[in-house]
Structure formats: structure tokens, C-alpha cells
């Protein structure tokens, strides 16, 4: 069977989808809110403009549902950037190939220095991040880095260039737990504009990455869109469609959703369609109301106030004190970051913030039984 998400995706039209979201009514929203199990039409209603007045109610339901399924806990993770070498041009990214910045790929020694710091902060779940530079930061490099740190981390996730199925299989064999691969935008033409050069310009190869991961048997797949590149409502819908397809097809896999958004006036690319704080809360709650089990993740892109509050509204995992530059923790803290983080509080402070709100930060929640 060589079916992939693309087969289903190609039956949808962006403009029609967006129109059908915007056409949702108060009645559709109330209907969606009153149900126990919700489908993608309900999801459309919940992310529609008609749902705006129901935000508090969505938050209440989202909180109750999250507490029922995940309890009063938040999984902690930390990203570690291994390299900023990249052969892609992405209009929104600090590591874009044409940006004149010093490039660095961490050596073994540097990796060990960085993780010594990370371990001192209690982290046991780590996210390894690279750009796309296949000669220097290909599968052998990633696998080597994983082996270098595997005794110190129970749970290793990567966010790197899309790979082939056999490459994922090789990494899974080396105890890879999860892979994050964000489509950035599900709008084919806009995607092309923002990724004019490099392997990443291939929309379809990226779109079917999660299928390759599912076939390879990875434990968890993380999806997301970079909100702001295109209309966030439509991109949310296609992310949800992707999620539902994957859950049905690769039923042994867990899924997580992340919510990166472009902010206006932060020095980088200006969003084409702005997603406000309210919109972001609406989207997070809508995902929770669509799916009680999916993990929802929040990075340090968002502000302190936002993060202090969102931890109750559906989010299940949180990063803290993140550095988005290779060597950012110890080796070369002054180098240029991939994107500017907003919540710079140290890990201890975030842990305390959670505890003060009755939430337990969970540091270790995995063991590879092999």
C-alpha cells in the first residue's frame, strides 16, 4: 500500500477550505462545544471567527479535558542546536543559506560541554536541532551525536531535515524516540515562495515525511505549521487533517502538535496573516477539544505572561531557557540565534512557576527497553 497523506491532501482546495471555516456559525460552534467526540467539521467551527466569543468556554473545556487525560503535570524538554549550517533558503529563518553568519557544527567535545550544562538543569528529554547540510550534518553525524549523549538522556527527539524511511529506521534502532517535522505552511504556492531554494523547496517530500516516519515505526511524530506564513485558520485545519489521517494510518504512533508563530515587529519576517494571542489560545484549545490524547507543546517563543497562563489550557509539554544557536548554552553563547526567544527565564524559575500553580514538572517519562 503506497497511500500517503498527499493523496488525501490533494482532494482539498485551500480557498474553499478557508471559506468553509469562515462560514461557520454560532450554531456550529455551540454544537461543537456540546459534543463529547468532535470531528474535523467541529474543529473548523472552533477555529472560526464565530468561536471568538466562546474562548473562555473553550478554555474551560480544554483545561478539564487535559487534566482528565494528563493530570496536573507538564513534561519538560530542552532543545540543543547542533549546527546552523544550512543549504536551504527559508525567508523566515536566521540560518537561511544566504544569511552572512558564522556557521558552526558542534564537535564531540562541544556537545559534551553543552549537555553537561543541560544535565545540571535536570533535563532528561532532549530535542536535537540542525539545519539541512547533508554532507556535514547528515544521518551519520546525527546518529553519532545521539550515541554520544544517549546514556545521559532517556528520551531523544530530533528536528532535522526530512529523511528517507530507511534512514529513520537506522536512527530508531539507535534509540530515537520522536521526530518533529513542521510543514511550515500547507499552502503549496506560499510554501514555494518561502522556500525558493534547497531540498526543502520540495513541498511533497516534506508533506509525506510523517508517512515515512509512521512506516519506520517511530514512537512519536510532531506536527505543526509556522503560523503567520499564511492564514492560521486554514493551516490549523490542515494540521488537524494531517493528524487525523496519521492517527488512523499509523495507530501505534503518538503525536504532538507545536504552535510556532511569526510575531510582527520582532525583526524577522512580518506575518502575512497575524495570529494574535487570542487566536493562539483559540487554536490550542481547538486542538485539545478535537483530540484528548494528542500532546500539545509550547516553546519559549512566547512571552512569560502567555506561558504562565497557557500551561493550564491544553499544553502538555514545555521547554525552558532554550538557546536556538549551536553552542548557545556554554560554548558560544553570543552567536546569532535561529529566532529570538521571548521567555528567557531560567529552568528553575519555570519549574517554580509550574509548582506554584499546582503543576508538577516531569523530567523523565521514558525508558527505552532495548
Amino acid at each position, binding site marked *: 500500500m503506497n497511500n500517503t497523506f498527499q493523496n488525501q491532501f490533494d482532494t482539498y482546495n485551500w480557498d474553499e477550505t478557508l471559506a468553509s471555516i469562515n462560514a461557520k456559525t454560532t450554531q456550529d460552534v455551540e454544537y461543537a462545544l*456540546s459534543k463529547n467526540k468532535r470531528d474535523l467539521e467541529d474543529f473548523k467551527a472552533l477555529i472560526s471567527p464565530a468561536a471568538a466569543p466562546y474562548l*473562555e468556554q473553550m478554555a*474551560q473545556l480544554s483545561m*478539564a479535558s487535559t487534566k482528565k487525560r494528563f493530570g496536573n503535570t507538564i513534561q519538560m524538554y530542552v532543545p540543543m542546536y547542533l549546527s546552523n549550517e544550512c543549504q536551504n533558503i527559508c525567508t523566515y529563518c536566521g540560518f537561511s543559506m544566504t544569511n552572512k553568519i558564522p556557521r558552526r557544527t558542534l564537535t564531540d567535545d562541544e556537545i559534551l560541554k553543552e549537555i553537561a550544562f543541560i544535565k545540571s538543569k535536570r533535563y532528561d528529554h532532549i530535542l536535537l536541532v540542525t539545519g539541512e547540510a547533508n554532507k556535514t550534518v547528515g544521518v551519520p553525524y546525527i546518529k553519532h551525536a545521539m550515541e554520544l549523549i544517549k546514556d545521559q538522556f532517556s528520551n531523544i527527539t530530533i528536528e532535522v531535515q526530512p529523511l528517507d524511511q530507511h534512514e529513520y529506521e537506522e536512527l530508531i534502532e539507535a534509540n530515537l524516540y520522536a521526530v518533529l517535522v513542521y510543514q511550515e505552511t500547507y499552502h503549496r504556492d506560499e510554501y514555494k515562495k518561502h522556500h525558493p531554494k534547497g531540498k526543502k523547496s520540495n513541498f511533497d517530500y516534506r508533506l509525506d515525511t510523517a508517512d515515512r516516519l509512521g512506516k519506520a515505526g517511530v514512537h512519536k511524530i510532531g506536527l505543526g505549521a509556522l503560523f503567520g506564513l499564511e492564514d492560521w485558520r486554514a493551516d490549523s485545519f490542515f494540521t488537524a487533517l494531517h493528524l487525523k489521517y496519521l492517527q488512523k*494510518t499509523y*495507530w501505534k504512533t503518538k503525536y504532538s502538535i507545536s504552535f510556532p508563530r511569526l510575531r510582527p515587529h520582532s525583526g524577522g519576517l512580518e506575518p502575512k496573516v497575524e495570529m494574535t494571542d487570542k487566536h493562539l*489560545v483559540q487554536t490550542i484549545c481547538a486542538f485539545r477539544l478535537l483530540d484528548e490524547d494528542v500532546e500539545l507543546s509550547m516553546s519559549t517563543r512566547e512571552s512569560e505572561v502567555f506561558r504562565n497562563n497557557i500551561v493550564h*489550557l491544553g499544553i502538555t509539554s514545555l521547554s525552558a531557557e532554550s538557546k536556538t544557536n549551536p553552542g548557545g548554552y556554554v560554548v558560544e553563547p553570543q552567536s546569532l540565534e535561529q529566532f529570538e526567544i521571548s521567555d528567557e527565564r531560567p529552568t528553575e524559575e519555570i519549574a517554580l512557576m509550574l509548582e506554584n500553580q499546582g503543576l508538577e514538572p516531569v523530567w523523565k517519562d521514558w525508558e527505552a527497553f532495548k
Partner: protein
Amino acid sequence: MNDILKIADKEFNSRLFTGTGKFSSNHLMSEALIASDSELITVALKRVDVDNEQDKMLQSILRPNVNLLPNTSGVRDAKEAVFAAQLAREALETNWIKLEIHPDPRYLLPDPIETLKAAEELVKLGFVVMPYIHADPVLCKRLEDVGVQCVMPLGAPIGTNKGIKTVDFLEIIIEQSNVPVIVDAGIGSPSHAAYAMELGADAVLVNTAIAVSQNPVQMAKAFKMAVEAGRMAFNAKLASVKKHAEASSPLTSFLQ
């Protein structure tokens, strides 16, 4: 409204599948099956006299638009099931098989391990396999993986008429399945059948409740109507049970 159920290469207008056991006479069975409008009728191979072309029971079933679905009732393991299926294919000239393996003669509960084993083998041999199973969502996915054309989880132990006791599991199965879900066993009344259809089942299989009713013909018709009503309600989307979420301490005031 075009609402055809497709299983393998066949299309069905009726979502009520029926069986042939427990009727008081072949004549009554025939009348009831006609009244049900069912297009897929299961028959236990062990009941058929395969050497007799004039087998009375078969003669009472066969009509245009009616498909025979031989079942493996009586077998106790995968090996026997595969043998029975091959016999059925030869005798009844159909590659469709309702796979039921119940080593337990008392409750007739299906053996999930032997069923999965037999299903894999039968798919390889070119059968359209319809497995009768517990309402076990993981088993359903495992069966889907080996290529069955539908799954037939039970609503309650077979022949009990207790209704849809496995509702929580059926909901998960229906949500996850990429093949049609046919609720089999336990459906004792038309309201049970309608309920299963409202949940989103693609079809139901009813035998005992029709066959042992005081008036099987009327009961068959009642089931036909109930299945149609339940399906229509599912398509029309049920109104929801009202719940109220009161905003006690506002969670979103930080956004003001």
C-alpha cells in the same frame, strides 16, 4: 441520497445483514429474509449439504441481489477455519467468508489469536475476509493490517439479545477504522440496531432476534426500518446532549 456501502468489490443498498440460523422453517426464513431487504446473508457451511444442489435452505435464500456469505461456524482454530473457507469457496462459488472461530461451545466467543492467524492466511489465499471478533480496537487494527475487508465486532455475546454492551470500544473502533465496521452479535431489538447505526457503524448483522421472534417477518421489516432510521440519523448528525460549562474563574482574562 446516495449512501451505498462498499465492501471489497460489492455494493450494498441495505445495511442490514442477516443470518439463517434458528428459524422454525425454511419457508418462514425465506419470507423474513425477503422482508428484511438484506443483500448479504450468512449461512453456516456446516448446515449446508454441499453435495445436494437442491439443498432446501440454499434454495430458500437465493434471490437476485442476494449475496451468500458462508461462515466458518463450528471451527475451533485457524487451520480448521482455512479448510472450511476453502470448502465454502468451492461449494458455494464465492470467495467471501465470514470468519468465526469459537473454540468455546458455550458462549461462542471468538478466539482473537486464531482469528488473526486465519485472516492473514485467507487474505493471502484471495478471500474477502469478514472476521467476527470481540470489540477490541487493537485487534481491529491488526486485522486491518493483514488485509481484511471489514471488521465485525460484537455488541454483546452472540445470541443474548442484550444489545450494544461494548459501546465504548465500538466508538473507538469506528473512529479508527479504515474498513467498514459491522456490528455483529448481541443485537436483540430494532432499537439496538438503530443505536449501532447512530454510533456510526457501517452495517449490522442480525439473526437470532429475527429468527426467534413471534413474528419473524414483521420483525425483519422492523429491523430494516430501524437500520435505515439509524443510518439516516447518523448522516443527519444527532443533536447533542446539552452540557453546561460555567466560567467560574476566567482562564482567559490575561488576554484582555
